[in-house]
């Protein structure tokens, strides 16, 4: 039997759009469930704080009468479920009430703080992505060389040194010793503001970059050893084409996943960096709210953080599925 014609054994339905939409719907639903559960936890645990919420509001020296008045004013005598319902319905309208400590609507405080934090995080993240990926690719390609060892040293230190310690050292070196850049506050807008955000941004970027470089180097190193790279080279494909369509594409899932993880990890880092550089961002706002036992503010920030994490994970998953068709299988209801 000569085989001049062969029909493929399996004909999976490919990756149609309809099952994908179903998957997306399921993911959104489960994301909503997670956010709902977290909102309950957030709501519940502030009520579990020592002395209850009225103590938090009234402060340590409030009298019994004052506490009763607070309970009345904030409807703390209603059943917990009613209070939670109230909380949810206003939260859906982006109304988190009034901050005890800032004496203004919670959303106002948050949006003001976000105007500092968002550019800072975005700058740090994008810089880390671009430079970290580049460093990772080059050091994987020259594995074992001087450049690779230098990068390795940088990633080990950058990824594990406590960020507040590096932040203080950087601010001492560039702010105090060299006097190149301001180290405190966010400046008066325009260029001054940018100058003030350079050091915090760089500090954030260094840690993130280390994490991205490390994963890129490992994954690209694995891909470079794969047969399909040898096969592509053996077919005379141009090196740049091999880099883009073979190496980077096949590292894509890991890189995107790590980029998402780094973005989430920057939530912790930004608290510390804002503390060191005395910036009025979301991190400082959270610390302030905690110190002041400002319950509405704590609830709002935690809830936003949770939504942010869930959203990042969802986007990461979708991007990974767009990169790798194998991930669409099973999730879109298609089996091999």
């Amino acid at each position, binding site marked *: 039997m000569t085989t001049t014609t062969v029909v493929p054994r399996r004909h999976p339905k490919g990756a149609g759009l309809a099952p994908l939409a179903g998957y997306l719907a399921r993911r959104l639903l489960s994301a909503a469930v997670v956010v709902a559960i977290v909102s309950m936890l957030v709501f519940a645990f502030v009520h579990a704080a020592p002395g209850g919420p009225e103590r938090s509001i009234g402060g340590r020296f409030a009298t019994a009468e004052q506490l009763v008045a607070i309970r009345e004013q904030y409807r703390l005598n209603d059943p917990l479920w009613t209070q939670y319902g109230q909380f949810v319905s206003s939260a859906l309208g982006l109304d988190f009430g009034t901050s005890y400590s800032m004496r203004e609507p919670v959303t106002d405080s948050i949006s003001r703080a976000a105007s500092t934090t968002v550019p800072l995080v975005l700058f740090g993240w994008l810089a880390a992505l671009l430079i970290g990926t580049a460093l990772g690719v080059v050091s994987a390609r020259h594995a074992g060389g001087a450049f690779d060892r230098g990068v390795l040293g940088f990633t080990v230190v950058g990824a594990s040194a406590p960020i507040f310690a590096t932040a203080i050292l950087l601010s001492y070196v560039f702010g105090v010793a060299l006097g190149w850049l301001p180290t405190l506050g966010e400046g008066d807008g325009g260029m001054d503001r940018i100058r003030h955000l350079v050091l915090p941004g760089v500090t954030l970027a260094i840690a993130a970059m280390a994490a991205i470089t490390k994963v890129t180097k490992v994954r690209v190193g694995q891909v470079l050893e794969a047969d399909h790279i040898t096969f592509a080279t053996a077919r005379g494909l141009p090196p740049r084409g091999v880099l883009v369509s073979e190496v980077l594409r096949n590292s894509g899932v890991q890189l995107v996943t790590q980029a998402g993880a780094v973005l989430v990890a920057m939530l912790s880092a930004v608290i*510390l960096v804002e503390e060191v550089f005395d910036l009025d961002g979301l991190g400082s706002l959270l610390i302030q709210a905690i110190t002041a036992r400002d319950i509405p503010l704590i609830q709002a920030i935690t809830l936003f*953080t949770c939504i942010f994490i869930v959203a990042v994970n969802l986007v990461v998953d979708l991007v990974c599925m767009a990169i790798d068709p194998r991930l669409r299988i099973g999730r879109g209801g298609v089996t091999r």
Partner: protein
Amino acid sequence: MSTSLTLTGWRTRRPRRRPGIPVGVLIAAVLLLVPIVCVLFPSLGPGNATRIVASDALLTPSAEHWLGTDSLGRDVFARMVHGASSALLGPLLLASVTVAISTVLALIAGYYRGWADGVISRFVDVLYSVPPLVVAVVLVGVLGGGFWLGVAVLTVFNLPHNVRVLRAAVEEQAQLPYIEAAKTLGTKSIRILWRHLVPVISPLIVASFFLRFTYGIVDLSALSFLGLGVPPGSTDWGRMLAENRVTMLQNFWATAAPGLALIVMAVSANIVGDWLYNRYEAAGRAR
């Protein structure tokens, strides 16, 4: 007519593999021993960690005060030595408990599979992408539970990563013929776990211990730095860093010492952990 041909493809150099322990790892391991010495000899050096001498405030390093004094005139070197125990204890506890629990969970999930695996994997998936420090900041800040609540919260939120890494290793090994052969011979599953699986993944367990230790140092000192967990004035390195920072221009070393100590500890533990981890991976590829 002889001619030399070398690869013109992508990777240009082969990773050097040297036998033995690299110098960097050795140095890191030795540095990790320094705080242990401090714990064993708490009265190292000439100063006093807690005596407040207002007249001696903010002295620069001298023979009497090796790292100078802080704003209250306390000896920084003595405080560093004194703080070593708190710097070690929290991360050690966090790393040990995390590794112990996650090893058990990973063995159950990766070897026995079934519904237990489903429950454990679900737990891991839900908590996986939560940044531990943020949760610890909020919980410790609101509940005011102090240092030990911080350790507990960070332990719980460090579990998912560790379980995922170890579970993957257990699952990979459990499918290999040597385990199937042990099953076919009738070896009891406890013995398969203890005699076969745990020894094979033990380098990974040790590596994960060092990595968790690193995160312990970083996150616990961050809590202290933010003023959560430890009371003001304690000799915790993170706390010292926060308190001495404002006087950095007067005595640089009062700030630099705890900062550098934290960096050196975290980086050293990470170097050792990374090295062990890479060695385990390389051994897997070489089989």
